[in-house]
């Protein structure tokens, strides 16, 4: 039995007679099995080996969408888990083959809908590689701001729903209040809250309005305060620790082999972050840390994502400080729409406008796989072009699809109530899994 000690705050002052924080040892067995408190687990009465089949979902608030899990239970212990997905399948990839590149951006909103603007950025970057476009400096910084805001939004939804699943209601409200502020910022910038469609191939749909940076700076200034509050309520809370430590352990080798990415992989102790290892948008010039866990359990995933929120704020601060002036869109009328005023007053601009809208920009023959670090993990867009305005193949590499594939491995041997905590720690979005 390896002993892992987490400092927890009990309902008392949490200090012992010497004034030191009390430590409550939590024992986990070496095989990555379930949480065992100090008392040895009581023996289950032998029920003649009868197993029970239990169905969770697809319409269940704790499955975060339309995930269905069929569980074989021995008493309260999960013996086997068979996940079913596809209830939200819409055929995005098929539809993409019949759409121009700029039209596909609207579909990327609806795929991982908690990270819509981050998907827009990822898709535009992939399409720009396919077109061979270098975007402007201002656009790069705006896209970094968009990606990090989107990471914060997604992590806040994850944090809130995770708390609800485990039974804490207050942090959910705090998280959703702050998320609402980001949505207001996005609404001021793009005009939409959830389905942003913020990017275009070669630029953005709109530059930020006057005074928008003040709102962002205000958010950067006040948001860490909320994080501190949530941190104080959760991180060393005895119930929280008891519900999360030692659950769903994945070792680094397993995590890599199962293809986990993002916070799931980093919680298992692999410091793979696309922003650091295969940088894009000049992420190598930003100063930020990649948090890495060492236990690979649900609690470490919580810690990793929580630290990522703080790091995102750091990146936002640096991006806000360096945002250069200049054009947002590239200067190429074959790809980018001319300004509306010119399109209605100049003949050439009108022709370009017509051609970009009706025919669409055409990339050269080729293909590209562009991966970004989405809040869920490595999100890749693989596009194959045959030289026409519509892709031959548009493929999404969905991080939460691959992460969810490991759920049978993670839940087997744990209690039924822990299935909910483990499932919540994967941070799944069914829109992305089923596409």
């Amino acid at each position: 039995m390896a002993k892992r000690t987490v400092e927890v705050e009990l309902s008392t002052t949490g200090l012992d007679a010497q004034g030191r924080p009390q430590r409550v040892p939590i024992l986990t067995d070496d095989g990555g099995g379930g949480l065992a408190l100090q008392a040895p687990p009581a023996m289950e009465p032998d029920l003649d080996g009868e197993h029970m089949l239990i169905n969770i979902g697809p319409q269940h608030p704790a499955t975060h969408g339309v995930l269905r899990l069929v569980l074989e239970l021995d008493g309260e212990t999960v013996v086997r888990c068979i996940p079913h997905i596809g209830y939200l399948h819409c055929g995005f990839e098929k539809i993409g083959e019949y759409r121009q590149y700029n039209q596909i951006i609207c579909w990327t909103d609806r795929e991982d809908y908690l990270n819509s603007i981050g998907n827009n950025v990822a898709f535009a970057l992939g399409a720009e590689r396919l077109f061979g476009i270098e975007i402007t400096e201002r656009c790069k910084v705006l896209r970094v701001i968009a990606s990090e805001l989107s990471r914060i939004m997604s992590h806040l939804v994850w944090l809130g729903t995770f708390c609800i699943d485990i039974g804490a209601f207050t942090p959910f409200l705090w998280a959703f209040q702050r998320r609402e502020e980001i949505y207001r910022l996005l609404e001021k910038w793009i005009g939409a809250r959830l389905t942003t469609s913020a990017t275009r191939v070669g630029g953005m749909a709109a530059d930020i309005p006057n005074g928008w940076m003040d709102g962002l700076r205000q958010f950067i200034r006040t948001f860490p305060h909320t994080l501190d509050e949530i941190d104080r309520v959760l991180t060393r809370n005895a119930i929280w620790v008891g519900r999360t430590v030692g659950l769903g352990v994945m070792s680094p080798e397993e995590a890599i082999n199962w293809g986990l990415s993002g916070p799931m992989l980093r919680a298992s102790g692999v410091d793979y972050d696309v922003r650091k290892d295969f940088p894009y948008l000049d992420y190598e010039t930003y100063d930020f840390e990649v948090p890495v866990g060492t236990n690979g359990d649900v609690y470490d995933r919580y810690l990793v994502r929580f630290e990522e929120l703080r790091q995102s704020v750091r990146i936002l601060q640096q991006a806000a400080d360096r945002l250069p002036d200049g054009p947002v869109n590239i200067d190429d009328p074959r790809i980018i729409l001319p300004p509306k005023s010119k399109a209605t007053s100049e003949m050439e601009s009108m022709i370009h406008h017509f051609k970009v809208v009706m025919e669409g920009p055409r990339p050269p023959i080729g293909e590209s796989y562009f991966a970004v670090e989405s809040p869920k993990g490595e999100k890749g867009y693989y596009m194959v072009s045959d030289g026409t305005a519509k892709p031959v193949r548009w493929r999404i590499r969905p991080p939460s699809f691959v992460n969810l594939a490991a759920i049978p491995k993670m839940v087997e041997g744990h209690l039924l109530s822990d299935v909910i905590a483990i499932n919540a720690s994967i941070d799944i979005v069914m829109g992305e899994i089923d596409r």
Partner: protein
Amino acid sequence: MSRFEVVRTGASAPASQPATQKAVSHRGAEPNPSAKALQDKFAAAVRRVEVIWGETVVFIDPASAHDVIRWLHDDESQRYDFLSDVTAVEYRDAEVPIEVVWHLRSLPFRRFLRVKAQIPKGEPLEIASVYDIYRSADWLERECYDMFGIRFRGHPDLRRILMWEQYKEGFPLRKDFPLRGRFSRSEQLRQALAQNPEARYSMEELSIADAFAELPEDMRTRLSKGERTGE
């Protein structure tokens, strides 16, 4: 109090910091060193190597796909330990063969490699599964089978994943599959209403515990004949 040693990516890579790629050329960039190693090791299996937008593509013989990927995973100088994606591409031109695509990453070397195998026209859509090398191939290959009908030999559980198991319209991402689906809306509705609402569990699930004995008589006979039900 840690259980695992932290695995650092890029541990075997040259010391220089990775940076955002700038001004990537369409063709003719320097290929990934693994391509050269593959050509030396599997001269007969590697058909050609291309570099498109800075990404190296290695076209291999479909018969040796498993051996090549196994070597890329195991060899100390390659160590492609992370399988990003398994997918397929069918082109609009019916003459061009269907391609199976693996996106591999080597975390220790910080390399990215795309391996492609073209399945010639007229031959059965079959290729070896890499499930025994990468567990992440499990759902990715199932999805590829579901969408393209490519059978991965050696996959232990090659079922449909996004579409339901009784789905009869074919493979949605094939180019001969119309965007609206093969059946009319009324036919789709008729089939949906004709579904047996009892049939929500697969054979594998129904074999669990006593659920089998509690099924209606007709379902039990169908199940004992090996007919698959449910999702």
